[in-house]
């Protein structure tokens, strides 16, 4: 019965997710296509076909890609193709969007994954430690640093890190080197500054949330019970308090993921020249390359929707009181 409830809930959520994804595609498509420029303009510039009459070239390209049709027909064509698994043609890079994404997603993925791991693990640890040592110097220091961390915009932090550690001290390259093999220490080293840039703000936030959630739970009666059993403090905190305190923090982490996928990672990729989806999307926006922009926006939306669903499922085994029926 419990299982059936959860399955029904998942199906319901997946239907919602499909509807939201459809909405995201529609809005992004029209935002870009109703703008004044045609993708063909930029395409033309890229081709440097100066010998012919530009107007003729534009018309030819528009006819070839169906850009001369009314916008609503283009929209229907686009959505139908998308549903068939054809993600369209990138005008600015002259390749299928699918291929473009395949080539670049991993750079975003590694950045976001490492930043999440860095900020969540460190933030939660510092937060719990800070709560256990409430009102000590360590606690005040952690609080001070987390406020600084929350307040610093990450693009500024990124530039400052490059200035100090790459330009002044020369410890890191100023630019991300795509030639490095993915699973190598050199690649990890190259990602240190980007991960700090993207992760610091989030880590500061998690520290605050983990601290207050821990404080809430430290005062609960079951903590007294655990101590009265004779359990060592590391078990009292690490088992009894942690499992209860982690729940709200996980909510915030999953919530942040959307912010990171859409915001922070874009800026960080651009600052450090990492050729991930953010940078691709950034270039595509200026090139009016709508198939790329719509696809990357859609991927972001799907990541958020699916992680939210995953979070809801994780809740059920983290907290047995949560049920969906």
């Amino acid at each position, binding site marked *: 019965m419990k299982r059936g409830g959860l399955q029904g809930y998942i199906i319901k959520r997946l239907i919602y997710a499909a509807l939201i994804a459809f909405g995201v595609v529609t809005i992004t498509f029209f935002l870009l296509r109703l703008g004044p420029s045609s993708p063909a303009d930029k395409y033309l510039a890229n081709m440097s076909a100066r010998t012919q009459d530009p107007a003729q070239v534009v018309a030819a390209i528009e006819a070839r890609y169906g850009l001369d049709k009314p916008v609503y027909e283009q929209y229907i064509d686009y959505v139908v193709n998308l549903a068939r698994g054809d993600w369209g043609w990138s005008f600015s890079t002259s390749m299928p969007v699918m291929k473009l994404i395949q080539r670049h997603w991993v750079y975003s993925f590694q950045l976001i994954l490492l930043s999440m791991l860095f900020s969540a693990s460190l933030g939660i640890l510092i937060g719990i430690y800070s709560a256990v040592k409430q*009102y000590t110097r360590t606690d005040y220091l952690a609080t001070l640093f987390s406020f600084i961390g929350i307040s610093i915009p990450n693009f500024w932090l990124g530039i400052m890190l490059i200035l100090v550690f790459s330009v002044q001290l020369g410890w890191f390259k100023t630019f991300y080197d795509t030639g490095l093999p993915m699973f190598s220490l050199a690649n990890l080293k190259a990602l240190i500054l980007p991960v700090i840039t993207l992760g610091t703000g989030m880590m500061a936030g998690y520290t605050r949330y983990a601290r207050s959630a821990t404080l809430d739970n430290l*005062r*609960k*009666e*079951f903590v*007294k*019970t*655990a*101590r*009265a*059993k*004779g*359990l*060592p403090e590391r078990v009292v905190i690490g088992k*009894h308090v942690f*499992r*209860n305190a982690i729940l709200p923090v996980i909510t915030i982490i999953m919530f942040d993921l959307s912010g990171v996928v859409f915001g922070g990672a874009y800026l960080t990729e651009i600052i450090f020249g990492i050729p991930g989806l953010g940078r691709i999307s950034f270039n595509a926006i200026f090139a009016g390359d709508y198939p790329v922009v719509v696809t990357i926006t859609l991927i972001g939306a799907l990541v958020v929707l699916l992680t939210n669903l995953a979070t809801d499922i994780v809740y059920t085994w*983290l*907290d*047995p*009181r949560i049920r969906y029926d």
Partner: protein
Amino acid sequence: MNNTVLEVKHLKTYFFTRSGVVKAVDGISFGLRKGESLCLVGESGCGKTATALSILRLIDSPPGRIIGGEILYHGEDLLRCSSERLRQIRGNRIAMIFQDPQTSLNPVFTIGDQVAEQIKLHLRLKHKPAMERALYLMEQVGIPQARERMKDYPHQFSGGMKQRVMIAAALSCEPEILIADEPTTALDTTIKAQILDIFRDLKQERNMSILFITHDLGTVAGIADRIIVMYGGRVAEAGTALDIFDQPKHPYTHGLFNCLPNISAGRNRLTPIPGMIPSLIDPPEGCIFNPRCEHRMPICSEERPKEVVLSGEHFVACHLYS
């Protein structure tokens, strides 16, 4: 006489709050003997719970701090032993049960896991034998279908069943002393009677020493060998259950009895004790009870009364008897 297992001497536990120092426990002494059940009785806020928590050093700090006294477990001072030694005693030799079973169990772990936890810790059993022992204990305290219910979570248990779980966990290492802090207060009357039965059995069958804390003299009657009446962080009167029930001396003890319904005496109305419990930040001078006492004398607001021995173990801290 000398089979005292736990001796509390001049215990002082203060809470250092923003509005001042709360003297929750202000110089309390008593001994607990082998196989005896001793009841601490008093109104809310008289320092009963603070006394109980002080014994295992479970006072929340800050704001609380034990500032003086000794707690001798077979002569070993628990206030001065290492925290490592204290952990060996907690849950193992001295176990504790708390007032509210709704909040005393961790909501995210199974019942079986929480009962087996200290078995694994103190008896060093592996998971499986520990779970078997947990099951046995849960059956002992009368949890139906214990084997299936071990996999359930606290929110699937009723209040009375949760308190049984707490008792099962507390008994798991066969402690010498059981401290029960208002274990029946949060339960309804029929369940309360069942839980008290469990305590009576424990005392008889296992020869366990029980420190039972309650604000309800009616509850005490069924299980106490000796009674200590607390008021304002101090002992007002102490004696055997017979002493206290038959010949209550302290005006406060009288007051407590007058608050109880009594069919045989044919009283129609209950008489409450006038006034409020005193602020323990700025307690009254002299005898703490003097502002509410109907036998107040001039000396009561000047001098703190000494403990006067009336007979055997019966003593009272009141100027009426000095």
